[in-house]
């Protein structure tokens, strides 16, 4: 048993050091600058050991400097999903959107939507879950103790408000699960999900779209600014929440 534990520990440490080494190599390639090499290395790390804000952000930087604005925006969007308040990610995402030359790569949020985007969906989820558990515990405690009930009423009301607000944020932003970013240059949208179908228009690389359904390697998408809709090949757009 001790041997197995030691082996597991060794393998874990080796894995951590390998990942660190790979990230450093990618960062080195990025600063050398060898952007294709950096992008390839970062994509490999993400595929093997998962995404992190730093990996996705650096991948976005590499893609941006390779002139691939669509994939750069996709990488920055993913990084912002993990770390929405990181100043570097926010600044570079804005630069990339500006560079996309698309009039509606991301529509502006209304004033009341701003607070709902202060936290990431992950953070809202944790807040909602923790709030729900806390409220449940408080209800149980308050139910059996009148003395405790009187004292905890204000705290419970605040916890309920926080939980409801978190849940509202999650419900409002649930549509983001089907957000995708156009990654190829001006792909044509088709009336039906096959190549020979008539075109309904094209979208600029970097444009954010909403995926409504997926069928045989095609996605039915609509631009977030409204207007254009049609079928797009899966390879022309990357899902923001896909690994």
């Amino acid at each position: 048993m001790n041997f197995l534990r030691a082996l597991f520990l060794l393998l874990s440490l080796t894995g951590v050091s390998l990942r660190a080494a790979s990230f450093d190599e990618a960062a080195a390639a990025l600063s050398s600058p060898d952007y294709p090499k950096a992008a390839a290395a970062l994509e490999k790390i993400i595929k093997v050991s998962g995404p992190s804000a730093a990996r996705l952000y650096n991948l976005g930087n590499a893609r941006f400097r390779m002139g691939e604005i669509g994939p750069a925006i996709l990488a920055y969007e993913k990084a912002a999903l993990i770390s929405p308040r990181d100043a570097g990610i926010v600044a570079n995402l804005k630069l990339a959107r500006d560079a996309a030359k698309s009039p509606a790569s991301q529509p502006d949020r209304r004033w009341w939507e701003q607070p709902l985007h202060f936290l990431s969906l992950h953070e809202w989820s944790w807040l909602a879950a923790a709030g729900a558990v806390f409220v449940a515990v408080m209800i149980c405690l308050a139910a059996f103790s009148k003395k405790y009930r009187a004292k905890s009423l204000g705290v419970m009301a605040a916890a309920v408000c926080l939980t409801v607000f978190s849940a509202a944020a999650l419900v409002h932003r649930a549509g983001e699960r089907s957000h995708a970013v156009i990654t190829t240059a001006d792909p044509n949208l088709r009336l039906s999900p096959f190549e020979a179908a008539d075109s309904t228009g094209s979208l600029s690389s970097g444009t954010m779209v909403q995926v409504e359904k997926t069928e045989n390697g095609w996605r039915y998408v609509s631009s977030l600014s409204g207007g254009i809709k049609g079928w797009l090949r899966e390879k022309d757009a990357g899902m923001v929440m896909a690994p």
Partner: protein
Amino acid sequence: MVNGTQTELRCAAWHFPAIISRWICLLFFLTAAMLRAAEVTATLEQKEVQAGEAAELRLEIKGGRAAEPQVPQLPDFIINQGGREHQMSFFNGVSSATTVYRYAVGSMKPGDYTIPPFKVMVDGREFKTQELKLKVTPSANQQPQGTAPGTPQPQSPGGQAAGEEAGFGFLTVELVRGSDRKHVWVGEIAPVRIKAWFPAESQARLNGGLQPEGSAFTLHNLSKQPKQEEETRGGKRHVTLTWFGGLSAAKPGSHLPDLNCRASVAIRDPNARQRRRGAFGDPFFDQVFTPTIQKDVTLSSKTKEASPIEVRPLPDEGKPDDFTGAVGQFQFGVVRIPSGWMSGEPQQISAEVTGDGNFALLSQPSPSPLENWRSYSGQSDFSAQDAASFAGTQRFRFNAVPKKPGVQGVSLKFSYFDPESGKYEEVSAPAQQVEVTGSAPAPVVETKAADTTPPKNPEPDDNLAPAMIQDTAVRSLLPLAFTQAFRVTIAGSVAAAVAGLLFARLYSWRSDPARRARLAEESAARAAITQADAFAARGDVPGFFAAARRVLQVRLAAMWGGSAQAITLADVADRVPPDSPVLQIFSEADRMEYGRAALGPGETLQTWRSRLQQALGSLPA
């Protein structure tokens, strides 16, 4: 007398349903107009101009309610607003609102320029136009001060506007400022008072707003509603409309401020008045019966009395490197710089600049010393305090990255040209001490040999924030909310809360003192009945009646409230009918208790047992 509206609404005769239906239709069309998708396009009239000349850029916004467009900035390139038109039309039930902004664009330096997109907020959404390309060729006459092609020459050789010539009206433009300075500088926005003069006895209607002609001046922030007054000029009475705005000179030289305004003016025919002199012998009747002449005229500020404005070029001497064309008087307001930084990590700096001048050309302040910092273009918003003089506050928010660790002083600075002193000024905010932790970013690559060392070019100048050097925690891109674990947690919490409430309710019900007392009384009643039966079986008469009274006391106490033992014969006699078996049992029990008497003739305990059953049956359970 002067009607400032362009459109006349002719109302039909009073017909209430028709009026209501028209209003509903109008409301419907307006709603439809607001809901229509907006479209923003920018076009250039020419693709090529000579240096010192201007091309017209047309920015068209169709649909929606648009805010003022954000004019992009380009080094050595001038973009000046020339005017604005707004149209709203209904056709076949479809409405469309169109706003057109006109800009004079050009440069003093030849070259190929790419005009960045204009940003416009329409109905809360940001729209951007496409980039435009303009080629500026070297000037043919080498006289940038000369009149540019396309600049309209004065309409009248005598310098007299057509409108004034016919006596229909004219415009005047006066500089309004505290100092007695007679000249302006290129790029300076000079506050002006613009007046439209109409003869006192005329009727006039404006057919549009004020428009600058030519490329010498541009008009900014014109007040929306002109002020109407009566004034005397040259011994004649006039009605005047007064606007306030800012006039900005685009090129040096001596230029007449050339503005015009279309209007429909109706005046009394002076010739007819002369012909009719003395017809009635009364000035009132002469005036009433004098015919009027109505004419669509273009009022112009190019009159005989108009004096040119001297426009001086900005001097090259002492021009700071970071000067971007801001002319006016500015100073720093509130500046916020975080006190704690980490080397290589960006943070936000905010700064307010207040003052008076062309804020549009004011560049973002830069951190100083420049070699220790790298800043990125951020956002800014302007709040005007005075629409005519362009006083206000511009707030900048931008990210900066420290390049050097350690405790150091940092300040913000920007430069502008002061038109009063005629000199460039550099303004610095008070220096603040900041602490930058971490080490200076170093190249990670260790090269194998000197001859194969790649050129170090870590950060191309594309304003991209630098790469992250250290990896962060690995996280799933799928938020917790979209996982099964989240659903289980929420469902479990809700179930726990509901179960808690149910258990609490059950606990509360079970521990209710009234309920517990009732149960105890019922138990006592049952025990007393059993006891009475036992006494009856044994033939114990006093014991039977004592037990029977206890049963009834418990039942009556449950009905009337209070203690069972406190219920006496007197209480029962007051509250139950005289022939009730309850009263009989109470009376007999009292008699047995105090008198120890025997049962009456013909009575047995079985008889009284039956009466007890009747008594219990007459009471509710």
